[in-house]
């Protein structure tokens, strides 16, 4: 049996100098193989045509329900998955999937990632100084004689003490481990960091410390972040622009105020209305979404959200909506905005 066809066509984009990252029609499919013969019988369409830009020195928030493809988007942008399915990823105007292994290795320090789980992403048998310093040495970021001072400087930037250097990860609390992960990424002097749910596993009071740290570091080092989270209040606090994902698609994308003050997509509206507000006087007018998110291996035809959308029209069931700019910088994929 032949593998199902994938549409890999897209219209290439031009690089614009103010953007550090440009993602165009990006797809990442994971093959589904049948039991014995390992034929590809279908695809999990984890990322299914995603387009956005991030300006240098800004933060883009990426939100959506679990399994909608946020992590896969972040990893594919960094070329941490085994290839993209189609589309473009331009980092400083350079298609990163055109780079040789050697070139991508040289570029690695510039683009880093911080993971959700600070417990499993640190090697248990390495002392903190090694965890932070290993790649610094490997990439020759600083001369040998400056190495110790450099690591101490980074640690202190991240709120770690110099006496923490010889300790091992298990001796730290969740919040401190997340600081170590941030220090490890920062030590390579990156321009761009994907933060994948960096505070979701932490207590509210520790969350605040880490968010403040990320913001301070951004200012000091002119960093650009892609901040992935399902906590919309955190995303609102930290982001300049926000993308909303549903089943592998970026259904809406715009400035923070576009998304929170004038959400255009019915899914964004539902998502925003679901946030519990810590104020007993504010009563939200909740849009409760029926059912759960369909499987990305077998998404609904037409608009993927139509099975749960209260505003669904006939054409939504068959025609895929395309991304439209409804005001400068505010994009939405929904037939409600068809002319």
């Amino acid at each position, binding site marked *: 049996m032949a593998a199902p066809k994938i549409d890999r066509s897209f219209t290439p984009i031009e690089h614009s100098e103010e953007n550090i990252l440009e993602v165009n029609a990006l797809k990442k499919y994971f093959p589904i193989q049948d039991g014995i013969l390992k034929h590809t019988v279908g695809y999990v369409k984890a990322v299914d045509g995603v387009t956005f830009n991030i300006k240098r020195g800004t933060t883009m928030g990426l939100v959506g329900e679990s399994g909608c493809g946020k992590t896969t988007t972040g990893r594919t942008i960094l070329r941490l998955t085994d290839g993209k399915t189609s589309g473009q990823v331009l980092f400083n105007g350079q298609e990163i999937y055109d780079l040789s292994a050697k070139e991508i290795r040289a570029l690695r320090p510039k683009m880093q990632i911080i993971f959700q789980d600070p417990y499993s992403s640190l090697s248990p048998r390495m002392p903190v100084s090694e965890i932070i310093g290993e790649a610094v040495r490997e990439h020759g970021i600083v001369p040998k004689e400056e190495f110790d001072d450099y690591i101490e400087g980074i640690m202190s930037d991240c709120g770690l003490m110099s006496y923490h250097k010889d300790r091992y990860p298990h001796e*730290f609390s969740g919040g401190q481990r997340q600081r170590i992960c941030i220090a490890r990424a920062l030590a390579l002097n990156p321009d761009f960091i994907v933060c994948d749910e960096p505070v979701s596993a932490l207590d509210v009071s520790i969350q605040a410390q880490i968010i403040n740290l990320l*913001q301070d570091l951004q200012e000091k080092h002119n960093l650009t972040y892609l901040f992935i989270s399902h906590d919309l209040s955190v995303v609102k*606090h930290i982001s300049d622009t926000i993308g909303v994902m549903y089943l592998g698609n970026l259904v809406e994308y715009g400035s923070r105020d576009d998304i929170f003050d004038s959400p255009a997509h019915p899914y964004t509206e539902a998502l925003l209305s679901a*946030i*519990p507000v*810590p104020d007993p006087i504010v009563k939200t007018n909740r849009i409760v*979404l029926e059912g759960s998110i369909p499987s990305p291996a077998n998404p609904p035809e037409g608009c993927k959200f139509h099975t749960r959308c209260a505003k669904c029209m006939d054409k939504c069931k068959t025609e895929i909506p395309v991304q439209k700019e409804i005001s400068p910088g505010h994009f939405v994929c929904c037939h409600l905005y068809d002319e």
Partner: protein
Amino acid sequence: MADKKDLSYLSAKESRRITKENRKITKEYEKQISRKDVPESEYLTKMHNDKNILEIDNLHTYFFTDQGVVRSVDGVSFDVPRGATIGVVGESGCGKSVTSLSVMRLLQRPIGQIVDGEIRFKVDDDKAYDIAKMPIAEMQHIRGKKISMIFQEPMTTLNPVFKIGRQLDEVFELHDKETKAEDRRAKSIELLEMVGIANAEGVYDMYPHELSGGMRQRVVIAMALACQPKLIIADEPTTALDVTIQAQILDIFRQLKEKINSSIMLITHDLGVIAEMADFVVVMYAGRIVEKGTLEDIFLHPAHPYTIGLMDSKPSVNKDVDRLYSIPGKVPNPINMPDYCYFRDRCEKCLDKCDGEYPPLIKISDTHYVACYRSEDKEVKE
């Protein structure tokens, strides 16, 4: 991590001594709670206020660990009125779960023990038991029947190898052996529908792994409701779920409260969830209650510096701040609690007086209590 170091400095000899001593203490407790044929009169009690379904009174629950005694719950008192929802908030490790496990008598034995206090529970219209004094064996008449618990991780309740239907049927069977198999099945399916599972008959024949996290949590809620309990304890029931699923589950709780008029004890660190669901709020810090009151008391007039810090450190979609407040420092070591206000070392508002003994819980309005010297001038005397 200074205090962690202190712990590991415990010499082997010292640690052995502690272990031996603990064994002696816990053996006594175990003997007491495992007794058979205890007359009901021993744990029969009276509610202090007939409107309450549960009254936790000066509860002390300790863990006798090899490093020393952890005073996880150290003098906690609050009431759960009938039909009301009580929200319990506080930082990780402050004793929220231990409080609820004490009510269910599901503490890790033998190291976890209720060492003092009463847990008065109104079993029916004219009878109340002190759960803290009940022999463990008697708890089977309470657990699941009169009080149910919903845990954060649904798989702690569900058995991966049995179909959903069988697990639900079992709950009915456990509490009423007389029912017929097909009646149980019908009841189970009805419950699954009640918690908003669309394809209830299909789900009845599925295994837990075939369901999403949100659906599993609904099944667990269905199980908890099977016997129409008077009190539902939900420990972080939506923390592992997405906001949209969380909204669905909270909706179910609200409807259920109306349908079966039960009380809910809702444990969460999400202040937004509390604001939406609770009638009364209890704020815990390091094993004690630092503030309690109505929802309005706590959210509109928070009095304890910890409560205020907690409110300020959470970003909210309806307020914009440049920088989030973060409470400095960390929780004291539970084995080595200071003899002054537990929050003093992190408190930005402390007074000279705060070096003195731990502040008593004072009443600052008919419904609002706080343990802080700052509020002394607001105290209302009875």
